[in-house]
């Protein structure tokens, strides 16, 4: 007993030591990584500044300069009307976010059940999947003229265009998720006399979850992507419209302000989905750690 006790202590000590080493190493690596990253970003900004502001190279002189953008963005009285301190900026953000959220939730509410059904019933799959495959290759933005003609109002068409790509991404990934479930689970369920409905609720739905969340992340990305296109081509408000309008009015800094805002929002929304996903699937993480 004493021997095992000391062994255990030794193992614990070794573990702690290793962890300490690894922790220190990763901290250093992290810091070095941080400095490299900073160098890269600052280098890029400098290059941008030099080409547009200092040297004003041909063609580059048409681009907004980083300093102009910064002063415009943080000014309380912006020259072109959009900055951190103007309500119109937040209105554009709000409109775009609302459209994306609406489109995303419709796409998920329709796409996840459809994907699950496709994976659950072979017959349903045989009948319906060819239709999905028929419509899926058409890029969402090709729907813009069609949507504008058949739907009343710009709002509905922008939302439709935004949700299409998200819908197909959700359906496909949910289906893949069902297919990725280990066959042994189905065999075990049959042996234990599960009804079909039990197979659905106890195996298919939890089993497909990891892929569903991958699908949701992709869906969020493509939703933002199509939203910008829809707003540029057909919108009267929102960030895509802000960018294109800024181009029309030659309000150059606003173009980049819109781009960066879109980037940040896109990043935040996929980060939020990742967060929710890992929270909902804590059991999976635990399972992995236990292996």
């Amino acid at each position, binding site marked *: 007993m004493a021997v095992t006790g000391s062994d255990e202590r030794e193992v614990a000590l070794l573990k702690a030591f290793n962890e300490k080493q690894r922790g220190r190493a990763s901290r250093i690596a992290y810091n070095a990584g941080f400095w490299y990253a900073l160098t890269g970003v600052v280098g890029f900004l400098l290059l941008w500044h030099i080409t547009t502001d200092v040297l004003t190279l041909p063609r580059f002189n048409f681009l907004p300069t980083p300093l102009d953008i910064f002063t415009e963005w943080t000014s309380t009285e912006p020259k072109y009307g959009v900055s951190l301190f103007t309500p119109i900026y937040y209105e554009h953000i709000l409109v775009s976010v609302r459209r994306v959220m609406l489109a995303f939730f419709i796409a998920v509410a329709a796409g996840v059940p459809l994907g699950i059904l496709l994976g659950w019933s072979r017959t349903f799959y045989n009948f319906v999947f060819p239709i999905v495959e028929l419509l899926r290759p058409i890029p969402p933005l090709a729907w813009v003229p*069609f949507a504008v003609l058949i739907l009343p109002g710009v709002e509905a068409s922008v939302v439709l265009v935004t949700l299409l790509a998200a819908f197909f991404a959700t359906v496909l990934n949910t289906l893949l998720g069902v297919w990725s479930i280990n066959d042994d689970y189905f065999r075990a369920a049959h042996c234990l006399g599960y009804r079909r409905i039990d197979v659905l609720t106890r195996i298919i739905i939890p089993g497909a979850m990891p892929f569903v969340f991958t699908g949701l992340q992709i869906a969020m990305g493509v939703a933002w992507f199509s939203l910008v296109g829809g707003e540029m081509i057909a919108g009267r408000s929102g960030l895509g419209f802000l960018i294109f309008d800024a181009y029309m009015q030659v309000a150059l800094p606003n173009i980049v302000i819109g781009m960066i805002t879109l980037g940040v929002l896109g990043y935040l929304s996929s980060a939020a989905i990742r967060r929710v996903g890992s929270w909902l699937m804590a059991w999976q993480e635990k399972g992995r750690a236990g292996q």
Partner: protein
Amino acid sequence: MTAGSEKASLLWVRWSSRLRSPVFWQGLLGIATFFAVWQIARWIGWMTIIPSPVELAAGIPEEIERAGYWQNWVDSGRRVFTGFGIAALLAIVIGVAMGMSNRLRALIFPLFEIMRPIPPLAWLPLAILFWPSSELTMIFLTFIGAFFPILLNILVGIEKIDPRYKQAALSLGSSRGAMFRRVMMPGALPSLFTGLTIAIGITWEVVIAAEMASGTNGLGYMTWDSYMTHSMVGIVLGMLSIGLAGMASSWVMRLVGEKAMPWRRR
């Protein structure tokens, strides 16, 4: 027996077995139901703006015969493949360099991560300002759309290579060149082709929007022009053509992938 006839007989076997399987007929029935519902909806008097399948079938040949239809395919295709080609080349060079040097990766990867979430279409105004012609603008946009997914997938591919392969290569005294040719390249290829397939889909999407917003020809412009002239048949034909073009491109990508990775062919 020559290889050609063998292939033909194989094709025949595959098709005849497909025709005999219920799956094929169920799928056909599903699609037929889709069109039937659409047609019946028109008869009842719903969705009067959308032409019925019968009207489409009657109207589309006429639209196709119109001068310049096939030229639109060529124009859009040229833009897609030029932008895509440049993106693939640059992404492969940068990706491999980043995969082989941790320092370079630490330097530029965060910068790319900051730029990646910006939707490709948001670059359109800047691109119009910067590039002297609309042709170059659209090529640049397709480039932006394709570059990030390809780069990201190459990096993932290189990262996923089993470190034991690298260690084995190193302990067998492999040079940097051999490491690249024998370990990195075959290891990253599957992931690279995933990236290329994703990217070709995105480039079609981007080129359509760019043509709608600022083009004067191409399939996207054709669709937009049909919208302007309220030709619903033209719009649907445009959508179908774009879908087909995208499908054909992904199919080509898959074919090239199978050729490049014979060990993965099923």
